[in-house]
Structures are given as C-alpha cells and as structure tokens.
C-alpha cells in the first residue's frame, strides 16, 4: 500500500529538479549531490542564438549553377512545374524570334523561373523528379516579409545558387549528386567521339546501363 500523497511529492521533486537543471549553478549542485543531470533548457532565444539544424533540414528550393551563374543545370524541361503539388513553379523557356529554343553551354535554358514561396510546401518533389539535378533544397528559412505579393515570388535571379554552396550546406547529399553527374558525364564523353556534339545519336549505343 503506497502512502497517499507520495506521488504528489515525487512529482514536485521532478519539477524542482527540472527547475534546477536550467541554471548552471543548479546543475553543479545536482552533480555534487550525485543526481544524473540533463542539459536543461531545450528552447533557444531565437534571433540571438539559432538552432543547429540537421544536414537534411530543408525549406525552399534553389537553382544550381556550375561555376558562373549563366551555366545553369536547368534546361527548362518543366517536369518540376508539372509535378509540383501546390503548383508554385512557373517556367518559361528561352526562345529566339522564330520560336526555337535558345541554347547556352549546349543546352536549353529557362527565360523565367519563378517559385512562389507563399505557395511552396517544402515537399522536395521538384528535387526528386529533376533528371538534371538542377534544383535542390536550401536550408535558409528567414524569408519573412510584410506582403505576400512580389516579395514572396522568387525569380530566377534570386533562386540561383552555386554548386559549391550546395556542397557546403549538404555535403552528403551533394556528394551522391556529384557522383551521379560524374557518371553521366563519363558516359556522355565515352559516347561523344563517335558523334558530333550538335546532332543527336540516331539510336542509343549498346546498352551499358
């Protein structure tokens, strides 16, 4: 038979220990008494101190370029635009006066690439569907603004970020992406000598995949 009220006292002990644990002095006291101590405060005073996010933390997509900002990986294929569940991506391909796609660095490019942040739900589907690894998720999250019109609509210029930045914020993910791209480039260069770069191969080479 438990003594009536002992549960109350034990509960009060738990809260008092938690109270002490949030102060350095209290933690020291508990250690001296030989009581196991946790880290205390869980929350952080946000604008001054920021939480250390996991590498996989994501918020908003960005467009990857290699070297210079004009060397986009994106070819304006519009797959992400079609796959985006809330339909926040809007892409227009760069075309010349005759309506033919303009090419730079051997591939087509978007004239307009808008993502509406007020609609984006950070689902990462655009990243998964992109065959060129041209879009990746950023871990920046401080984008609050006082209107939801133009300032929340991120244009191509605002979305451009370098591949080095991607390697810096997400080392693990970027290394797999880099390996994949390197494998693809190796395959392309292996196929290149047989065909001129402009013309497409009439049939795929002997299957080596």
């Amino acid at each position: 038979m438990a003594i009536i009220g002992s549960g109350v006292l034990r509960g009060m002990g738990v809260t008092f220990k938690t109270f002490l644990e949030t102060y350095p002095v209290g933690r020291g006291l508990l250690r001296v008494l030989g009581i196991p101590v946790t880290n205390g405060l869980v929350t952080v005073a946000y604008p001054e101190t920021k939480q250390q996010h996991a590498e996989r933390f994501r918020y908003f997509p960005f467009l990857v370029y290699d070297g210079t900002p004009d060397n986009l990986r994106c070819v304006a294929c519009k797959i992400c635009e079609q796959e985006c569940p809330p339909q926040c991506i809007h892409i227009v391909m760069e075309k010349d006066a005759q309506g033919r796609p303009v090419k730079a660095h051997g591939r087509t490019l978007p004239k307009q690439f808008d993502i509406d942040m007020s609609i984006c739900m950070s689902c990462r589907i655009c990243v998964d569907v992109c065959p060129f690894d041209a879009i990746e998720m950023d871990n920046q999250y401080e984008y609050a603004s006082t209107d939801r019109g133009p300032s929340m609509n991120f244009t191509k210029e605002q979305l451009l970020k370098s591949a080095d930045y991607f390697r810096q914020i997400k080392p693990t993910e970027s290394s797999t992406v880099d390996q994949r791209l390197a494998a693809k480039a190796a395959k392309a260069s292996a196929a290149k000598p047989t065909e001129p770069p402009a013309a497409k191969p009439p049939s795929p080479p002997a299957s080596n995949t």
Partner: protein
Amino acid sequence: MSSLDQLFVSIKGAILGLAQRLLPAVWLPWVSIVITIGVIAAIAPAIMMYLTWLERKIIARMQNRFGPDRVGVYGLMQPLSDGLKMLIKEDIVPRGADRLLHLIAPILSVVPAILLFAVLPFGRNMTAVDLNVGLLYFFAVSSVGSYAIFMGGWASRSKFSILGAMRSVAQIISYEVPGVLSVVAVIMVTGTLSTVGIVEAQSNRWFVFTPWGCVGALIFFLSGVAEVNRTPFDMPEAESELVGGFHTEYSGMKFALWYMAEFLESFAISAFTVTFFFGGWYGPAVPFWIVAVLFAALIATARRLPIPVKGLGVVAMVGAGLCWGTQPIPSWAWFFAKTYALIFVLVWFRGTLPRLRADQLMGLAWKFFLPLALVNIVATGVWVSWPFPIGTALSALILIVSSWLLVRANHPEAARPLRTYVFAD
C-alpha cells in the same frame, strides 16, 4: 544614520517631521494616513506586476523554457508592456450583460485584495493598521472576493462564466471552514487576534515547528491556495472545461483587474501564512553584510545586465553593506523572503500538479482538512496543557494517528490488496 530595520519607518517619520513644520497640526494624522495608503496603493500593483513575471519565469524553467526575455533585460519590462497592452485593448461587454455589475465586479475583487495589505505586518513597526481583530478582518475581507467573482460570472450572461462562478463560490465556502479552524489553534496559543501580536508571540519559536503549527500551516496554506483559485484548485477558471471560468467574458483592463486580484490574494495568502505560522518578520540574526555580498556577487555575475547597471548595483550593495554591515538582516527583508519562498511553492504547485476533480476538491476540504483541523484544536489544547516534551509528543501522536485514520477512512480501497487481472497478460 538610522538602523536598516527601521529604515522605512524613519523615512516616514522624516516626512511627517517636514509636514509638521509646513502644515497645521490638525492635518498631521491625515498626512500620515495618506503616506501609508499611498505606499500600499503603489506597492500592491508593483507586487502584482512582478508576480506575473516571477510566475512566468519559474513555470518556464520548470518546463525547460526561458520564459519572457524579450522586453528588457531578463524580460523585466514584460509586466509594463503587458499592462500597456491591457490598457489599449478593446473593452468588450457581451450583449445582454448587466453592464453596471460587469464593470463593478472586477473592481470589487481588487478592493478586498488591497485591503488585506492593511493588517499585514511587513516588518517591525511596519503594520499599516494594527487592528486588535486583524485576523478576523483578514477572513472577513478575503471572503468578499467570492461575491465579486459570482457577480462577475452572473453579470457576464455566459454559461461558462456562471458555471465558473458557481464553482468558485462552492469552493471558497468549503475551504473557508478548515482555513478558519486551522488558525483557531494560533489564537488559542497567542490569545490575541492582532497580527502583530501573533508575530510577536513567535519571537522564540515559529509555530510551524510545533506539531499543531505544522499541520495548521499545511491546512491554512492549502485552503488559501484553494480560496484564491490557483492550480491545482483552479476549478472556477479551468481553461480546458470552462474557457476562462468567471472571467471568460472579460477583456482589456477589466481582465487585468481580475488577474491583479488573484495575484494579490495569492501574495496575501503567502504573507498571512508567514505571519501566522512562519514567524512573520522574525528570522535568525544573520549579519547584513553576508546578504549584501551575496547580492553584489549575484549582480556582478548576471551576464545580461548592462555594465552601468551592474556597476551601480554593486556599488549600492557594497555601500549598504558598509553602512549597515554589522546589523542583522532587517525584519522586512525576512518577511518578504519568506513570503516569496511560499509564492515559489505556489508556482511550484502550478508547475507540477494537474487540476483536481470537483469531488476530489470537495472531498479534500470536507473529509480530510475539516476533521484534521478539528483534531488540531484538540492537539493544541494538549500542547498547551502539558509541559514541553510530553505535550509536544502527545499532540504529535494525536495528529499522526488521526491523519492516518482519516486517510484510511477516506481511501478504503487503499487497504485492500491490489486487484490483479488474471487475463491481463
């Protein structure tokens, strides 16, 4: 240089001396009254404001949070900003409400809470009015608050409000009885109803260190917690059941007044528990310089205080230590230290305990506290009748046996062996 203990008394004396020169003698009593009332009227809201800050800070720490830290250093300006917010908020009165009563009720709840400060012995010679029926006055005035609560609930014309108000009245009436009976023991021993007299009777021994005082303090304090509707006895304002209870339909400054009444009453309950059982302004004669050094170190090591404030605080503390270092800690400091320790316990309750069910609440008052308070009176009689070791041992025995019997009588299921479910696993 007057003594630190009588610092505030001598400040008042100095002001009165000044008034004596400037004003005709007929006015002097009025000046004295105005000073006393002015100090209480200024201190009461200040105490309330920083009680909210203290409560939020302590609760936050118990939940592994920081608590308010945005406005000012350590959130010290938070109460001011809250007050400003309350002042500029819209005052909403429900349609069909009794507008006059709706306005009067929160005011009526604050008035008795401030009136309680009149008989509080803050320190030696620091009681505003030393009524010879101070204790009776305390009980009479503190129960006026329940009228205000019911008035507010009724005037709101809201089901939640009226339910909360009804619960509140039931609760206050129930807990008034053991609360009063627990203090009867104190009256028996001291033979006075004056709060100053009760404190002075504890100059050798705080009553809490006697068997009857210990039980009496427990009953009085917990009844007080129930009377001011604080967790775990916060049935009248149970957020999860009644939206806000009796103050559901209040907003803006009227709402702030309800909160002010509640916080002032919880301060008063702690202060009166200290007065009746914890020796009031008496305390061990610790030299003042120890406290001064402690505070100076605390201010110097506070990380977020700006440097000028730090320097000023340290200099002030060192100066005070040099000035009054050899004197014992002043009586008012003891009083406030003990009161705030009990307020910490109040907040600690709130951080720990879930709300009681209505039947548990009433059961605790009528089936445990009330009989125990009655037994406590008998135990006090025994304690008074016999000399030290016999009386103390006998009264302790009576109290322990009777509380054990009460628990057994109230919880017959506790005596039975735990039921085991055969098919449980």
